[in-house]
């Protein structure tokens, strides 16, 4: 996920660097306030740990290996603020000494790996931990948190790279940096992460946290309970940002409509026909096909569909909660 120099234009690099500075400032302040003085060396040593963790190859099904980033892991072990600083430090050394990741794109790499992964991962983990009583539920939350966090970071990386043809072109409109549009860059970043790196990250995080919890339970960072307000803010931001999907013209890999699959190009040849099972198969007459409503501009339709999706999820979640409560009441009555 390390973006080298010249895949992003200088303008994007500057924007990403400005975006990550508040995260560093808040983290540095929070660490200075929270961390006892004798733990100051832990930042540097945590960075060394984070650097080494990125070098470990995790076996994934199929006999191959994948690297873990360990962002959620560090956030759970050291706290998200210390993890942000530690991972940034590790990334700086990778860029300066080992040429891994660019110098101008350092801000973007820090945004994806040192800000998104630890904060999002820790937040989802904490949210699950505070609401689930059993150890198993907590670990499930941790696995999901690390899987989502690394994939979200990959998505951010895909968007940053995929925006280049739109924001930086020469006089003839030809791309000056990474030439791939969002419709190529997002699937190219996400598919390997969804299929391999995410699984490796989740398994790795889970196994190490379980080991440390067993071997030395006091060593795990105990933060304050997660607040739900930022989650609502994030959901609103995502709804508003959902028209970004419109920029990614074309279908995502594997999400073609039956008519579109005819023109899918594989190995230089287009398919040229619609698989019979798809043509005649079951088709659900969705009211909001392609996330749009008839008679509405596309962008508004997108926002409305995103809001609808969230509302449906919240209703389903609350109904499920009701079921659980009912069971608890029954159990209490049976006990009495």
């Amino acid at each position, binding site marked *: 996920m390390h973006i*080298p*120099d*010249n*895949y992003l*234009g*200088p303008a994007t690099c500057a924007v990403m660097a400005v975006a990550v500075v508040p995260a560093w400032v808040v983290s540095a302040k929070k660490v200075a306030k929270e961390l006892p*003085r*004798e*733990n*100051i*060396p*832990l930042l*540097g*040593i*945590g*960075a*060394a*740990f984070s*650097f*080494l*963790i990125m*070098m*470990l190859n*995790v*076996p994934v099904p199929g*006999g191959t*290996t994948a690297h873990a980033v360990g962002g959620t892991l560090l956030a759970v*072990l050291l706290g998200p603020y210390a993890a942000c*600083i530690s991972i940034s*430090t*590790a990334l*700086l*050394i990778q*860029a*300066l*000494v*080992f*040429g891994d990741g*660019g*110098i*101008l794109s350092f801000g973007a790499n820090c945004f994806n790996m040192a800000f998104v992964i630890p904060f999002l991962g820790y937040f989802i983990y904490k949210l699950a931990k505070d609401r689930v009583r059993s150890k198993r539920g907590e670990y499930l939350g941790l696995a999901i948190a690390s899987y989502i966090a690394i994939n979200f970071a990959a998505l951010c990386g895909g968007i940053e790279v995929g925006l280049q*043809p739109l924001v930086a072109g*020469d006089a003839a409109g*030809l*791309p*000056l*940096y990474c*030439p*791939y549009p969002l419709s*190529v860059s997002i699937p190219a970043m996400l598919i390997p992460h969804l299929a391999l790196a995410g699984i490796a990250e989740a*398994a*790795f995080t889970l*196994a*190490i946290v*379980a*080991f*440390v919890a067993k*071997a*030395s339970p006091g*060593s795990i960072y105990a933060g304050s309970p997660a607040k739900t307000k930022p989650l609502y803010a994030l959901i609103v931001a995502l709804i508003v940002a959902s028209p970004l999907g419109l920029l990614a013209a074309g279908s995502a890999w594997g999400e073609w409509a039956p008519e579109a699959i005819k023109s899918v190009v594989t190995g230089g040849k287009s398919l040229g026909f619609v698989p019979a099972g798809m043509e005649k198969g079951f088709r659900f007459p969705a009211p909001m096909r392609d996330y749009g409503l008839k008679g509405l501009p596309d962008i508004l339709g997108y926002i409305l569909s995103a809001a609808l999706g969230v509302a449906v999820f919240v209703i389903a979640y609350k109904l499920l909660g009701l079921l659980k409560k009912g069971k608890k009441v029954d159990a209490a009555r049976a006990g009495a």
Partner: protein
Amino acid sequence: MPRGRGPSGPDMEEIPAWLAASEPYEPRPDRGRHLEKSLLALLRVLAALRERPGSVRDGERLNPAPKLVSTFLVILLVSLSRGGLFLEAAAVFELGCLCLLRGETIARVLRRVLAAGLFALAILLPAYALGRGANLPFVCGKVLLAALAAAIFSSATSWPSMAAALSTLRIPDVFVMTLDMTVKYISLLGALLADLLCALKLRSVGRDGQKLSSLAGLAGTLFLKSKDAALAQYQAMECRCFDGRYAVSGRPGLGRRDAALVAADLAILAFFVAAGRAR
């Protein structure tokens, strides 16, 4: 071997037949090579960090701060440039710097730059298929030049002088200290991790069905060790009257070579502006 106690000595009992019988054991081959891969990557990093400790590296006679600024400037200008003319000038400047290094350093820098170039080519080639490849040589050239500038800087600057450069540039002390400590502990904890990986590799024969749990033990132990190391480090610092200030000792002054580098930087900046106007 003590006298009279040879294999045929009177005290020696016969080896029982069941022990003498040979038992063929062929461990089932394991597909996952994650231990070897991790160990190799780790040893490569350790070797890079410990390279020629204490000896004067190429380019060490330059003050590290202008070197760092110059590297950043060249990478920025290369990234900003929109015409091939400036890239040619930047290539001349960088190759000029490269030719001042020693042969083995040049070989190492070129290996790294070549790897970056091949990676860029592999990533960018499919753009031709999409009809977006017109600027491909230009983009690849930029990637190569940025990688070359970074590689020249990192192979011509030892870590302590890099930390000194950051300190000269008024980066807050606590960051410089953290960076310095990170590099030292990558080396120390890396050696520990290499030992753990070796031990695990020696003890796992045949197919290992518990790869993940062994890896968790490894990384978990590493984490607990780093916590101990952090506490020990703080205590040691406190014993030496550490008060949170990190002073760089022996900050090098600016010499004639540094002046030449600054002049070259100004020239390349002027060329960038001129090339931009000419277009």
